[in-house]
């Protein structure tokens, strides 16, 4: 039998095997940085970028898709469990990367969004900055994918930074205006601050447990917090939630979002609205111990109400605040920023459900523990938000880009395809049936109504669902206003679309996918459910 030390060592030395597609993305980025000096062409940058994404996707399929098992002879999961075979050790408490659970799902989301954003880059960039832009984009995508599998404080922090640092460059690259600089600096300073806060929390976690492995940390804290929560652990988790809250634009850590979105280049803002949310939510789930058994205890909560109620308050405040302020906006990007805040609030509902400790029946518990609906909603949110921003990129060609609500007037007459795509995305954000947004909201709301617990927390979860429903009604007001302006009013001026139709294609892809997922949500919902393991009691 292998010794614990050997297993540990094997995981550390073999860690690269769990991040092969991400390595391909990073390699492509390096190639692009070289090409930036030698062949600064937009088409080359986008082509190489897409090639890199395709390569990463192929590799991801080889190491992850069950039916391709025979090609390499090994796969991530077989490797992961094979390392500890015949030993009593639990791999999630040893490995720096965890390919189980949502890791594969997040990887595919990251790859798909990388492809979309690379396409969008074609519209956003010029020859002289395209290569750097696409390279930064790929690094950010790799970072997102890594967050999905980071199982160690060090890898988690590094992946989150791998996501943030390219974003600083991206915000600064295409736009050299005052507003652009302001937004880049604002994001940079606040992002650094939030990272520092989070790192501070991580240091407490390490100090408390003596390990950086998240699985081990969760185990240790679970054992220590059977009856009472240590105050230092509370400080740590509060700091971590605050640090992640910045990326998730949770109220009160959202203040940067409207300003940064307004000033930043639209294509980058599209990325900023989506990618950090994916990474942040997965990281939050991991740190809160929601991806690890056992489920009858939370690592930071002995009573079973502290964490759920904290998340409850965050969710309710975030969605209400986001929607209320979105009502007042006239600038489209600011409006979408507040809309993104509101949707982050909706997604937190899934976390509230996941953190209520379920009643165990017959040794198994319901698999619908909330996180799968968060994964589903993340995808739908990505589709509709990126689609909306892509339309704005498409319309931002001329001297006077479409910026305010009034600029959209009569869009249905002047640019019917763009207006159609935007209308689909807006209806989906509104949560109208046959759009992905409806299916996502339904999953979240039903999850909240059916929280697998009893007692007052169940009531609280239900109240939260009602709060969310009222919020959807408020949200409908401003989304419908946009649709009304586009389709019912006559055009004031015609927006220029000198950037070509690539952005429009991206928008149409997103809109079509929104409808497809809305009409037949089963495959995506099942994939999301499969990504969240059925948590058996004990190990």
């Amino acid at each position, binding site marked *: 039998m292998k010794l614990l030390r050997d297993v540990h060592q094997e995981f550390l030395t073999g860690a690269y095997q769990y991040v092969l597609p991400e390595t391909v993305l990073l390699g492509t980025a390096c190639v692009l940085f070289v090409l930036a000096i030698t062949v600064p062409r937009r088409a080359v940058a986008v082509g190489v970028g897409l090639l890199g994404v395709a390569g990463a996707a192929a590799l991801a399929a080889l190491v992850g898709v069950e039916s391709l098992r025979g090609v390499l002879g090994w796969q991530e999961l077989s490797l992961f469990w094979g390392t500890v075979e015949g030993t009593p050790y639990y791999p999630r408490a040893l490995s720096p990367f965890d390919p189980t659970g949502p890791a594969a799902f997040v990887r595919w989301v990251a790859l798909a969004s990388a492809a979309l954003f690379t396409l969008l880059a074609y519209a956003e960039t010029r020859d002289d900055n395209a290569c750097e832009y696409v390279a930064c984009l790929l690094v950010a995508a790799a970072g997102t994918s890594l967050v999905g599998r980071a199982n160690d404080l060090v890898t988690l922090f590094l992946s989150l930074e791998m996501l943030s640092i390219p974003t600083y460059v991206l915000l600064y690259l295409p736009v050299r205006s005052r507003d652009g600089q302001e937004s880049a600096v604002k994001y940079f300073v606040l992002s650094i601050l939030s990272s520092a806060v989070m790192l501070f929390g991580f240091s407490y976690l390490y100090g408390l447990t003596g390990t950086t492995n998240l699985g081990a940390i969760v185990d240790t804290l679970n054992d220590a917090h059977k009856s009472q929560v240590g105050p230092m652990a509370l400080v740590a988790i509060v700091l971590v939630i605050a640090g992640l809250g910045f990326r998730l634009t949770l109220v009160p850590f959202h203040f940067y979002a409207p300003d940064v979105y307004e000033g930043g280049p639209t294509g980058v803002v599209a990325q900023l609205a989506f990618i950090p949310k994916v990474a942040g939510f997965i990281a939050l789930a991991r740190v809160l111990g929601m991806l690890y058994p056992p489920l009858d205890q939370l690592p930071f909560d002995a009573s079973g109400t502290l964490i759920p109620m904290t998340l409850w308050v965050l969710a309710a405040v975030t969605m209400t605040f986001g929607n209320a302020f979105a009502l007042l906006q006239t600038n489209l990007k600011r409006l979408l920023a507040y809309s993104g805040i509101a949707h982050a609030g909706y997604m937190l509902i899934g976390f509230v459900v996941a953190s209520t400790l379920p009643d165990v029946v017959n040794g198994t518990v319901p*698999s619908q523990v909330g996180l799968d609906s968060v994964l589903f909603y993340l995808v739908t949110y990505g589709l509709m938000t990126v689609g909306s921003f892509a339309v704005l990129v498409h319309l931002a060609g001329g001297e006077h880009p479409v910026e305010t609500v009034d600029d959209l007037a009569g869009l249905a007459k002047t640019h019917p395809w763009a207006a159609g795509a935007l209308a689909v995305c807006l209806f989906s954000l509104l949560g109208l049936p046959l759009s992905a947004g*409806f299916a996502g909201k*339904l999953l979240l*709301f039903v999850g909240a109504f059916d929280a697998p617990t009893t007692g007052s927390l169940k009531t609280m979860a239900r109240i939260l669902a009602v709060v969310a429903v009222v919020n959807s009604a408020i949200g409908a007001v401003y989304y419908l206003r946009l649709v009304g302006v586009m*389709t*019912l009013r006559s055009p004031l001026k015609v927006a220029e679309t000198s950037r070509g139709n690539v952005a429009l294609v991206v928008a149409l892809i997103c809109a079509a996918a929104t409808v497809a997922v809305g009409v037949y949500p089963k495959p995506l919902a099942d994939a999301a459910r499969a990504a969240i393991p059925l948590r058996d009691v004990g190990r």
Partner: protein
Amino acid sequence: MDTFQLIPPALVLAAVGVPLLAALLVALLGARLAGLLAAAQLVVTTLLVVFTLGAVNVRGGERGPHREGLRGSAAMTFEPNFVPGDPTLANNEFAQTHGTTWGLLSLGPVPGPGVPAPEVQFFLGVDGLNVWLVALTSVMTLVAVLISLGRVRERPAAYFAWLFALQAAVTGAFLSFDIVLFYVFFELTLVPAFFLIGNWGPGRGRRDAAKLFFLYTLFGSLFTLVGLVGVVLANPTPLHPTPPPPTARDPKPTARPHYRAFTDPAGELRLPTEGPLTYSIPQLMRNASAWGNVRGYRARVAADRLAEADAGLAAANARLAAGPATPDLSLQAAAEKAQSLAAAEAATAIAEVTRGRRLQVWLFVLLVAGFAVKTPIVPFHTWLPTTYSEAPIAVTMLLAAVLSKLGTYGILRVVVPLVPDAATAYGLEVLGVLGAIGVVYGAFCAFGQRNLRLLAAYSSVSHLGLLVMALFSLNTEGLTGASLHMVNHGLATGAMFALLGFLEARHGTMDMSQYGGLIGRYPGFAFLFVLVCLANVGLPFLNNFVSEMLILAGLFDPSVVSPLGYGLAVAGASGIFLSAWYTFTMLRRVLFGPPIAPPLREGVTPAMALPEALGYLIPAALCVVLGLYPQPVLDSVKGDVAVVAQQADLARMRQGLPPSTRLHLPPESPTTDDAPPPGRGGPGAARW
């Protein structure tokens, strides 16, 4: 596989698919096809009606009122016919399961290892309640297309495409037997209506009207969504407390659905356990009734046992008092313990009953919110005047004739069957009274209008009030009348709006004071207008008469002497009288007297074109036909109305009220035998 068997389910799919296809074709190829496509849809639904009449009438005898609901294991429930995706179709079995296997989204906890999660399904079907509404939708859409041809000058292709999209959504909502699918279609009607009103409305206020309509309705229906989720979670399929013994084929069998509590041979009270969630309306209906009965049975048994224990305790005490000098205290202590246990159980059982009822009241309020706005029931009608006067007249016609039926149909299909206890306890008291207020208020508002469109709009509100009262009378006559009145109201009100469109297209105004003596100028129009007005008033031999008489009969239910019902019936009757008053006043002003009319609009010929004339003739003729011979409709709704009425009766009996229909139900007695689980337990059971 028998191909003939596949035709009716294909027709059900086509009823939703053809309008969608029509929308696409019109958008791509131009507006000329619109009339043809609407006619094609009419053919599809006519065939569907024929097939459904056959199916419903064949099973008419077996679906009459019977004792199953009380004595047997499961209450009667809706049995949708021709369900696409019915598993028996593939196996060429003759009996339908009235369920489908087409899943859309698995939603809800996995019941156990190896058992599939509950699914939202693509569950469409026809029965007596919805087939006529689907037909009505086809007829009225054809009328809308006919009266819009040539009148809509701005982007006609888009206009007709949205019109067909609206038709698809409404038809889908009528045909849905899955509760989430129903909501999806219900909500989807908003999008086409929004664009139709906002883009093609005649006035300046059309954009605000479109937004008001959309947001007001959405706000209401979001509460309905919460209610629907609540209903689903409150009514999981009840399972037999013990799984059947393992067999060679099935070594680890799961428990089967079982719809009532029973006392096992050992005298132990056995309650069904909560099984998987379901989204199928028929299954939910059965479950709702079952859980109510289970709670009621438990409370009755607990009360009986408490009485027994009380008696035992009294006997023990008496023996103690009269007994020997050294009493045996253990007997008395045992009796005391038994009594306290029984008292605790009785308290729990009663608390459970109260909790169930209170939950239903909440769900009732939530569910009704959306339907009350859509119908509209009076205090929630404030969106109506703006919308009806700002929408293009063909769309106003559809709103009044078809979309308002979504609200009443929702009450009939969802509210009453799924929250029967609250609907019987508070339906007539609250919504019936609101309906009565609507009847009178609508009538007076109609009388006060100068605008012909608003007059017709308020007249529609008034008649819908009658319909709402009928829905909550919850007896056979009332519900039959309501089902028929939905169709009749659609035809008569729709025809009225269509004919108002005649005037609007020619003279551009709806101001009543600008018209007079039109009978000389447009004799054909005048004839049809008088006919349709008479139908609206409820003249014998015209359609509304039949349904309104049935409704009044339902409210004057002689088997339940209730002052409230009589009061409502009086209000309803007065509404009918008032409608004669304002309608004839309007007719006198517009058709008779000195001939005046605003100048003709440019490029309009005063003569009726053929398509337009057909558009007026079809609904008017149907008003006459249904007035003379409503029997096919009455026959086909009979079975399903009995199902709803029985559901309500069971709820009434649970509350200790007498049943209102003459179902000859057996005297209420707690069943104690353990009947085997039903072999064929309806749509949900098929998946078990």
